[in-house]
């Protein structure tokens, strides 16, 4: 397994370095634009400092920030026993050293993500919308996908790539705004020399162009890193659950939903199981998407036959994509021990968001917010808010008294 992580790392390292070079080039150009005499290295230095500070913050606080930004709340087993059980099953299957923390996001949009630089300190977050829509097998597929992001060190990689993207956007923005406010006055006073002024003008124009273009370029690179890792996570999920149909049908249900996750943004988007920011009614072009197209992921998963090993996923991938590009690093394919697939036992549930699903979703959200539930004998479920102070209440339908 370790070799697999290594190979995965090596593959992304080229893209990662391209991001780094973009950052350094940006710093250098902007420095030279402001200070013609050796300012390039000053700019380089500042870019590195900004990147360094953000990286430190990301390393130590990245998970917390990610969870806070998404509005996730840590929950105990009582809130959703099934979710806890499934996470523990995947912990055993993936041999994680420690049980990941479990978070629920109060959002009707179905989605999930994982955080954790180290497998020892990881967390899995799912939305209430996801829990309400998926059955047990589907939820297991999603959790397996997320856990494999932790095991394959994708979270680590995406955190640092995301930080580089953030640094580039930050530096470019500060420069462009500074330009706006100083009105280029600084530049005109400095370009007193004739020949030097000419060269300085060109550098300035190049710097402005690069400041505008580099965030876009960096974003494309960032998304490219993200896309590569989704297939491997899917393949690992199949290996952990031995049940490709679970993930396939979960992906279908998630993509079918028309609700947006409001707390996601461009940097956090690649962390989710599907892109939370997809525009409606338009097929995304390949370059600007953080994830491979869902229809394709589903077709590959359904094309798996014979077993749950990486070789089986690669074969299905080759068949569907009609290409031979290696999605699984070679070291992962040498292990040919057959892992049998689980039999399909449960009939797929209907797509869409019916009344029952909506009620289930509401219940989960209330539980996360520490509402308590009382089942009255008349069949009514009474939901008590956490700030209800009295010791007892009466059932609004039949009038029975209940202790709290």
């Amino acid at each position: 397994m370790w070799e697999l992580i290594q190979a995965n790392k090596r593959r992304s390292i080229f893209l990662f370095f391209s991001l780094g070079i973009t950052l350094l080039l940006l710093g250098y150009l902007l420095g030279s634009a402001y200070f013609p005499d050796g300012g390039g290295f000053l700019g380089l230095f500042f870019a590195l400092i900004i990147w360094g500070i953000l990286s430190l913050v990301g390393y130590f606080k990245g998970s917390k920030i990610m969870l806070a930004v998404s509005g996730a709340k840590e929950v105990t087993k009582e809130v959703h026993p099934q979710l806890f059980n499934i996470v523990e099953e995947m912990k055993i299957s993936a041999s994680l050293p420690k049980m990941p923390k479990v978070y629920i996001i109060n959002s009707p949009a179905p989605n999930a993500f994982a955080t954790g630089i180290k497998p020892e300190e990881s967390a899995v977050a799912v939305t209430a919308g996801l829990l309400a829509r998926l059955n047990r097998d589907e939820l297991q597929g999603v959790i397996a996908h997320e856990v494999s992001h932790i095991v394959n060190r994708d979270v680590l990689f995406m955190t640092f790539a995301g930080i580089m993207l953030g640094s580039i956007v930050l530096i470019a923005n500060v420069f462009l705004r500074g330009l706006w406010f100083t009105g280029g006055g600084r530049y005109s006073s400095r370009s007193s020399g004739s020949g030097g002024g000419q060269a300085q003008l060109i550098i300035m124009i190049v710097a402005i162009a690069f400041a505008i273009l580099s965030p876009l370029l960096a974003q494309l690179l960032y998304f490219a890193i993200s896309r590569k890792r989704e297939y491997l996570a899917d393949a690992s999920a199949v290996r952990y659950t031995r049940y490709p149909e679970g993930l396939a049908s979960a992906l279908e249900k998630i993509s079918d939903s028309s609700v947006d996750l409001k707390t996601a943004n461009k940097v956090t988007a690649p962390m989710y199981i599907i892109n939370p920011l997809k525009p409606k009614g338009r097929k995304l072009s390949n370059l600007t998407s953080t994830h491979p197209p869902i229809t394709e992921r589903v077709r590959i998963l359904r094309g798996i036959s014979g077993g749950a090993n990486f070789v089986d996923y690669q074969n299905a991938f080759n068949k569907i994509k009609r290409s031979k590009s290696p999605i699984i690093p070679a070291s992962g394919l040498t292990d040919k021990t057959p892992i049998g697939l689980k039999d399909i036992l449960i009939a797929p549930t209907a797509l869409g968001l019916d009344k029952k699903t909506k009620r289930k979703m509401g219940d989960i959200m209330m539980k996360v917010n520490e509402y308590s539930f009382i089942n009255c004998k008349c069949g009514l479920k009474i939901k008590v808010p956490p700030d209800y102070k009295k010791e007892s209440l009466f059932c609004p339908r039949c009038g029975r008294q209940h202790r709290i």
Partner: protein
Amino acid sequence: MTAVIILLVVVAVVVLFVISIYNSLIKLRNQVKNAWSQIDVQLKRRHDLIPNLLETVKGYMKHERDIMENITKYRSQAMDAGTVGEKAQAEGLLSGALGQLRIQVENYPDLKANQNFLALQEELTSTENKISFARQGYNDQVLFYNNKIQMFPSNIIAGMFNFKEEEFFEVEDEKEREVPKVDFTGESQK
């Protein structure tokens, strides 16, 4: 003099070699034990859940006495089993009986709506999943360990210090997945 030194060096190398192989055998055996304890925790959990389940189900399922008796019988068999092989067999039978119960539940809508039953069923399903996922890890460890014991030169050291091969935890798949077959031929002959 030089002969003595050469002899001493050879002996030292051999001793170091034996120590390193012995240590690796110990390490592998401990890994097997650790992997087994992972399964054992889950098996115990399942044995603990079953009485509660039967208690809940009893009131609803009056016609499924056989299944419930089987579950009780296989549970005590599994708890008494000594070796890994015996345990695996008894647990396999227990899984089969629980599977049959699960199929019969479909005929009792009241039971299916019972919150207590649903919670128990979820715990049981999860425990069974955990057993099957932990089984894979355990069998992998046993394979490493047994290979080391059988292969040269570690087999000599294993023989000297009495390392014994461990058993795989194999549930007979046919029995575990057995689904009651509905026989329509009898009816059509009438």
